[in-house]
Structure formats: C-alpha cells, structure tokens
C-alpha cells in the first residue's frame, strides 16, 4: 500500500517536473519567436489589448459606471487629445514667430523702398565658396545687372551679376579675392575680399581708424558695406592692417532689397 502510494507520488513529481520543463521551453519558444520575428507576437498581443480596452471602455460607458477602468480610458483619450493640441499649438507658435520675424524684416525694407526704387526679394541660397548667392527676383520684377542688394539695416550685401526671368545671381561685397576701393572715415583703403563676409586692407599708419567704424564704398553708391572689426598696427611698419566685417551673413538674411540705380 505504502509502496504504491510512494510510486504514485513519484509519478506526480516527475509529471510536474516535465510540465515545468515544458512550460519553460514554451516560454522560451514564444520569446524566441517574438525576437526573431521582430516583435510579431507582442504586436498581436497589443491588438488584443486594444480590443479589450475598447470593449471595457464602451461597456463602462454604456452602463454609466465611473470606475477605475472608465476613468483610465477617459484619461488616456484625453491625454492623446491634449498631446495633439499641444503639437498643433507649437506649430502655430512657430509659424507666428516666423511671420513676426518676416514682418519685422519687411517693415525695415519698406523704409528702404520709400527712399530708393527697387524690389524686395527672398534670398534663395546661401553664399557659395566663390561669394555667389541667388535671390528670388529677376527680369520680371525689373531687376537688372549692377543693381545693389541691400539688407534691411541698409548695408550693401552685394551686387547683381546675372539676371534670369525669375531669379538673379549676385556676388557678395567681400567675395574671395575681389578688390573694392573703400572709405573708412576719411581714409581710402583698398579692401580685398576673403569670403564669408570678411575683408582685409592696409591703411596708412597714421590713419584714424578704430574698431566699429563704418566702411563705405563709392562702387556701392557710398552705402555702408561693413564695419571695422579689428585693427593691427606695427610701430615699425608703414601701414596698419584693417579687418572689415559685413553687417550680415547672407545665410542669415531671408529678404533683401534690390535697389535700382
């Protein structure tokens, strides 16, 4: 009797161990399947969970019970709605900010337009390594070769080189290796462009030039083309070196005023 009982328990123990082993292998198989199918199993489970949530939510709503499940479902939906609203408002805020900046720039350009005839145009490209950039106005808008391209602060950015029907190719004032006869205060300085809005020139040692002085050029109708950024003078040298910087990088300007002669 006892032998039979122990024998029966041994069978139970072995069966149980085998079942546990089977369950372990099954779990490992499910995890492996999910891993190698790149999340197929969990995607299917999510679908089931979504159906469950929808069903439980509608059930709770239909009987009018405000329980945990109902409030959670409502909160999840509310959260999603609010997230969508926040994203929408952020987009609107960015658009408004952009429009505000555009408005400020165009208002300043209007001031230029009241003084001298011309056309406002968007900048269509950044400055290339050769000092070339493109603006979105051409023959159709009355742009012609030699017109000046001015920023909203009145400084000259460059000159129109070529004109097509709807766009114009321009060259910046301080294009690499370009020569410009400039005037710093009362001193004439031959400036050589270095690209990226930088110019360099030599002035007589006793010239009254200081950092921040406005640089103008006759070739650009006497308009300002930049400001002195740095001055280096050597006591033993006959000249002082003047480094000039354009007021704006073309890349940071969105609209320009193309001024006719």
């Amino acid at each position: 009797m006892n032998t039979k009982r122990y024998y029966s328990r041994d069978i139970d123990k072995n069966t149980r161990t085998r079942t546990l082993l089977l369950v372990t292998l099954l779990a490992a198989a499910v995890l492996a399947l999910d891993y190698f199918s790149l999340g197929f199993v969990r995607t299917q489970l999510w679908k089931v969970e979504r159906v469950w949530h929808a069903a439980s939510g509608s059930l709770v709503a239909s009987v009018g019970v405000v329980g945990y499940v109902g409030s959670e479902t409502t909160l999840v939906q509310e959260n999603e709605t609010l997230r969508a609203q926040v994203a929408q408002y952020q987009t609107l805020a960015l658009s408004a900010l952009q429009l505000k900046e555009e408005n400020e720039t165009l208002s300043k350009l209007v001031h230029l337009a009241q003084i001298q005839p011309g056309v406002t145009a968007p900048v269509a490209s950044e400055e290339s390594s050769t000092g070339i950039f493109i603006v979105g106005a051409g023959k159709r808008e009355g742009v012609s070769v030699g017109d000046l391209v001015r920023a909203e602060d009145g400084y000259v950015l460059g000159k129109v080189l070529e004109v097509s029907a709807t766009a114009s190719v321009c060259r910046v004032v301080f294009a690499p290796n370009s020569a410009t006869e400039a005037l710093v205060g009362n001193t004439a300085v031959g400036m050589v462009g270095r690209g990226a809005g930088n110019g360099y020139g030599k002035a007589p040692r006793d010239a009254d030039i200081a950092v921040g002085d406005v640089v103008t050029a006759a070739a650009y109708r006497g308009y300002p083309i930049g400001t002195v950024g740095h001055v280096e003078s050597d006591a033993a040298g006959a000249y002082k070196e003047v480094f000039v910087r354009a007021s704006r990088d073309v890349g940071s300007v969105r609209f320009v005023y193309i001024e006719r002669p």
Partner: protein
Amino acid sequence: MSFWYVIRASLVLVAVWALLSGHTGVLVSCVIALALAFSALESVALALCSDLLWHAPETIHAWPWITVLALALLWASEPIRREILS
C-alpha cells in the same frame, strides 16, 4: 471549492487586471506569490504577457525580466516542493 483555490484564482484575476492597467508592482507581487505559494504555472503566462505587452518592438533586445523571475522562482521552489511531497 477550497479556500486556497479561491486565493489563487483571486491572485490571477488581480494580476490580469494589473497587466491590463499597467501596475508593475502589483503584477510582480502576484507573480511572486503565485510562483512561491502555489507553484502556479499561470505565473509564467502572466509574466510572459507583461514582458511582451509592456515593451515596445524597439526594445526587443531588452531582457524579459519578469518571465525570468517567474521561471527562476518556480524552478528554485521545485526541490523544496519535492521534499515536502515526499
């Protein structure tokens, strides 16, 4: 229906609720209780479901910790259970 059977069924129900409502602590507690007190194989199913449901496909390389925990507890408690049975 025995008292312990009711307790076991209740634990499973609570674990299913925790699984669907995202209460990690409650679920892990239920899995531990089911595995240790009842050596219940359903604890593995619950743990597996939680690992699959709560991890996005982007985190597929993450370890299924709750399943590992449930299996480890079941295997660890097995010798003790054998001793008690014999």
